């Protein structure tokens, strides 16, 4: 990558990060609006969602972070094979440093041993880059910012699980999902969205649960079994009455996105990633030269 090209890509990545931190995607705001309509007037739940709604508008207007916890930075990129991946990774890290300086990202990356904050959001594991080459001549870039409060509500089950009476079957998977929602209560800044992975090893399973969060809230799972799990568990979770912020109410969960990986005969993991209402996810198609061609959400 020559320096002119680098500059182009840098600008594009900074803009994608800015938009992710300051603007929620429409598929998510639509669900929050629906929740607002469903809750009873005068209730704590409605009050919470009204403030959330105001906050989203304000953040967009002011081009400021929706939430002060700008979270883990998850970046998923498909890029044309001829592009130099190392150069691309470098540009993305630089974009993170600049976005932090501009205040789109909080200084959020701490050395686990020394406790020292890198101040730039760059360090081992941050940002989390997932780069994959493909044969197309454009780039598909997607970013998720996932806050700590909701990440702490993530959980991995190893089936069978006798505590909740979950076996290695669909019924067992459903119990895991509902147990995770119940455990989270309002602590993950609900109403939440779940990314769920069934199978894999412990690592790939959690990873897949986050990849599921890249799907649009409005899509339908092409696998009918998974689609049924997503729909029935969302409906069941909303019967729990936990509500926004755990204040009680109808809107506990806005949706579930579930995927399945093959597993070893000996293992059966169900991994749940809880995403807060501040579901900051954006994406763009970039030309091979680094121009933003289209927003994806």
């Amino acid at each position, binding site marked *: 990558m020559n320096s002119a090209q680098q500059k182009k890509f840098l600008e594009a990545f900074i803009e994608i990060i800015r938009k992710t931190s300051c603007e929620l995607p429409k598929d998510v705001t639509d669900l929050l609006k629906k929740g607002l309509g469903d809750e009873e007037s005068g209730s704590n739940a409605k009050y919470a969602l009204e*403030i959330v709604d105001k906050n989203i508008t304000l953040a967009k207007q002011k081009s400021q972070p929706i*939430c002060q916890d700008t979270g883990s930075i998850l970046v998923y990129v498909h890029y044309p094979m001829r592009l130099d991946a190392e150069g691309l990774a470098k540009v993305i890290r630089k974009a993170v440093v600049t976005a932090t300086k501009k205040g789109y990202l909080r200084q959020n990356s701490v050395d686990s041993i020394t406790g020292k904050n890198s101040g730039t959001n760059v360090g081992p594991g941050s940002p989390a880059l997932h780069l994959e080459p493909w044969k197309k001549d454009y780039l598909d870039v997607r970013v998720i910012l996932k806050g700590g409060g909701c990440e702490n509500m993530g959980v991995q089950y190893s089936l069978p699980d006798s505590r909740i009476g979950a076996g290695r079957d669909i019924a067992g998977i459903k119990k895991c999902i509902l147990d995770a929602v119940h455990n989270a209560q309002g602590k993950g*800044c609900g109403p939440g969205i779940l990314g769920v992975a069934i199978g894999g090893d412990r690592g790939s399973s959690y990873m897949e649960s986050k990849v599921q969060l890249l799907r649009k809230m409005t899509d339908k799972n092409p696998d009918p079994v998974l689609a049924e799990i997503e729909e029935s568990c969302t409906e069941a979770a909303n019967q*729990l*009455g936990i509500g926004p912020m*755990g*204040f*009680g109410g109808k809107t506990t969960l806005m949706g579930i996105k579930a995927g399945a990986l093959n597993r070893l005969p000996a293992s059966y993991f169900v991994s749940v990633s809880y995403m807060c209402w501040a579901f900051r996810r954006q994406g763009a198609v970039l030309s091979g030269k680094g121009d933003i061609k289209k927003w994806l959400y």
Partner: protein
Amino acid sequence: MIRLDVPFTEEKIRSLKVGDMVEIHGTIFTGRDSVHKWLYEGNQPPVSLKDGMIYHCGPVLIKEKGKWVVKAAGPTTSIREEPYQATIIEQHQLRAVIGKGGMGEKTRQACQKHGCVYLHAIGGAAQVLAESIKEVENVYEYDRFGSPEAIWQFRVEGFPVVVTMDAHGNSLHKEVEAASAVKVKELFEQITAAKQ
């Protein structure tokens, strides 16, 4: 909507109940992990907290033309302060704690005994909350704890919260948790039954 003006009286605080929606006006102090541990260890706060409130918040501020400006100021998870909070409520005669996610048994009891409430701010609503902070009046222990952990003194207007633990021993968190536990059990039974 109930309006609360700082400083509070015990009577006013005792009149609040779980589920009340409240707007705070007046001076509040931030304090998170380091401050709580430090006070718990017996250090005297640089400013009196009596009849006041502590906000679990690590704000983002920048200095513009020599003045502090709040960029984001949402609540942080309160339960981390559970080991310290009850003692601090008692020793410093706090009337309210603001945060998110609720607190545990010890704090609930301290609220009841000493006339204090837990006020739940809206997690993630960084911009709305920052807007209601009208002035940064002071900052204490900045050098000791650094910016997000320092004790910031804010003047707020219409800062929106919900009472989720009152001074009568009630906790909305406990209630919602218990009710949802019953429902989960029911749903589990339905799922198991559908399998057979």
